[in-house]
């Protein structure tokens, strides 16, 4: 699904990603851990092709296509979607309008039943995008847009931060359905990369693989539970050190 080779990225003249490699196969869900400032969100923005994120070296392949030179719209239309951590407020643009347009692109449909799955009301759909949304509402609105978009590859940037327990459970359940986790591994087609700080979401969604980012690189990869437990016990750096800066197979 996604293949990143030797990726180095500058933002505002400063190197943020440094020779990063990552492979996510079809039907796989990967988790990305890392301290603040380690480059997790930068990786997402680079995969999306945002212009401030300048690729100075390396390639990104998506579904077999080299997307390194494509603009954001082209990349997204190849089948990727993202749930932002801090989406901007857009006055006057209604959530219903955006969801409706996304549904229309994939053949039409009614936004309301999708909203209901996320416990969002009809009135909520009439609100301006992200304007005055609570933490939980932001996340659910992001996931709602992904439901309507129905991409092949999902990126979730901290879907569980600033969200109460009940909503994390709801979000986790819907994500799990979106990612076909109820199917057998060989039948799953949807892939995902999930950034999580606190790991709550992992209680509700079974990931296949986890990575720890440090200083703009994937410093260590392994089984999600193992890595998560290491981090909880010893912190990011110690976790990386223990797995020898490379693999941390559990």
């Amino acid at each position: 699904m996604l293949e990143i080779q030797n990726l180095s990225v500058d933002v505002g003249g400063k190197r943020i990603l440094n020779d990063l490699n990552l492979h996510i196969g079809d039907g796989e869900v990967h988790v990305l851990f890392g301290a603040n400032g380690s480059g997790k969100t930068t990786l997402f923005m680079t995969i999306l092709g945002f212009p401030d994120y300048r690729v100075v070296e390396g390639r990104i392949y998506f579904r077999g296509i080299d997307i390194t030179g494509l603009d954001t719209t082209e990349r997204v239309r190849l089948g990727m979607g993202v749930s932002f951590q801090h989406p901007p407020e857009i006055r006057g643009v209604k959530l219903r309008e955006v969801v409706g347009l996304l549904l229309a692109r994939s053949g039409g449909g009614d936004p309301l039943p999708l909203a209901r799955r996320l416990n969002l009301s009809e009135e909520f759909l009439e609100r301006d995008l992200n304007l005055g949304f609570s933490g939980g509402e932001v996340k659910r609105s992001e996931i709602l847009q992904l439901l309507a978009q129905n991409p092949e590859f999902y990126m979730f940037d901290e879907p569980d931060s600033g969200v109460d327990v009940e909503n994390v459970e709801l979000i986790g359940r819907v994500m799990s359905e979106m990612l076909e986790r109820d199917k057998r591994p060989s039948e799953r087609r949807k892939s995902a990369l999930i950034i999580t700080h606190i790991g709550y979401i992992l209680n509700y969604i079974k990931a296949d693989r986890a990575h720890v980012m440090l200083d703009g690189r994937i410093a260590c990869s392994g089984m999600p539970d193992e890595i998560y437990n290491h981090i909880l016990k010893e912190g990011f750096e110690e976790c990386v050190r223990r797995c020898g800066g490379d693999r941390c197979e559990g």
Partner: protein
Amino acid sequence: MRGEEEIKIESFDLEGGEHDPISGLDELSEYEKELLAAGIDPQERERSGSFLQQDHSVVLARSLLPGLEVMGIDDALRRYPWLEDYSWKLIPRDRDRFTREVAERPTHGYFIRAERDARITLPLQSCLFISKDKIRQNVHNIIIAEENSELHIITGCTVSHRVSSALHLGISEFYVKPGAKITFTMVHNWAGGVDVRPRSAVRVEDHGTFISNYIVMTPVRSLQMYPTAYCVGRGSVATFQSIVYASSNSNIDMGSRIVFKGRESRGDIVSRVIATDQARVIAKGDLVGEADDVKGHLECRGLMLSDTSIIESVPELKARRRNIDLSHEAAVGKIAEEEIRYLMARGFTEDEAIGMIIRGFLSLEIKGLPEGLARETKRMFDMTLEKVM
């Protein structure tokens, strides 16, 4: 602003704009597009009445519902001697050279009145139409909503595509009696060679409501106006909402003022201004608190789409009592890059994203209108926006 002295009133014709009366708007089919753009329905569907002035002639004035009167102002002044008590009472004849011009050389205008307790929920459509080149239109309008009545007016000022230059002067005096309500939705569909000077004032009595929705999206050579609502009654309410899309060389100086003279009166002034090309816009707002327990809010947002356009936002608050609550917020900026990227990350193209943001920016909740009229105003707004973008 195109200098006031630059407008030579006498260079525009006062004659040559006479037309015969018509029996239905369909007789003006050659101008259908212009009329539709100003919100006029030629079939008068879902309308309580129509008024149409073409150049210097009132060609149609009729009410379709009991309790509603629609006629030319001259007929009305002849028929009702008491109307003198309303004529030039909110706006002094000698306020400026444009008011003096209309006082001295009027070319009609409308009289609209809702009788006591008449709740006219269907809108009345009025149109001041310029079809002859190089004329001046000096109209004087008086609108009265008697006690406990309700009146919704959709008014379009429009100009034929054949007109290269013209001058429109419009005096409008609104009287909202106790418990009455007037909504006034005005669409200006001018052209790049037209100079426009509306002069409007509103008097709102006890628990009366006045709501103005103003939309201008097509270029205009120069437009200057500063309508004022005087909330004289206890608990009276006034709202001005303006949506402005200023393009090409448009020169727009517009503001709204609410003077709170009645105890517990309240009001809002809200504007959304987009400036592009070489357009210049001054967006003013003025809230004057002269009575106890009044509450007013002013909100002015501007969006710049070019480096050669100008928006000046001038909010003013004047408090003359201790016990009042007046506030304002003003913001001018460009479209946030972050918003465009966000929508592109949903698969919209850059142009689609910008279009959505601009539409969203301009889409004010149009308050106080009956559902049908709100829907139609929205449709008209969308149509105009499609055209200009």
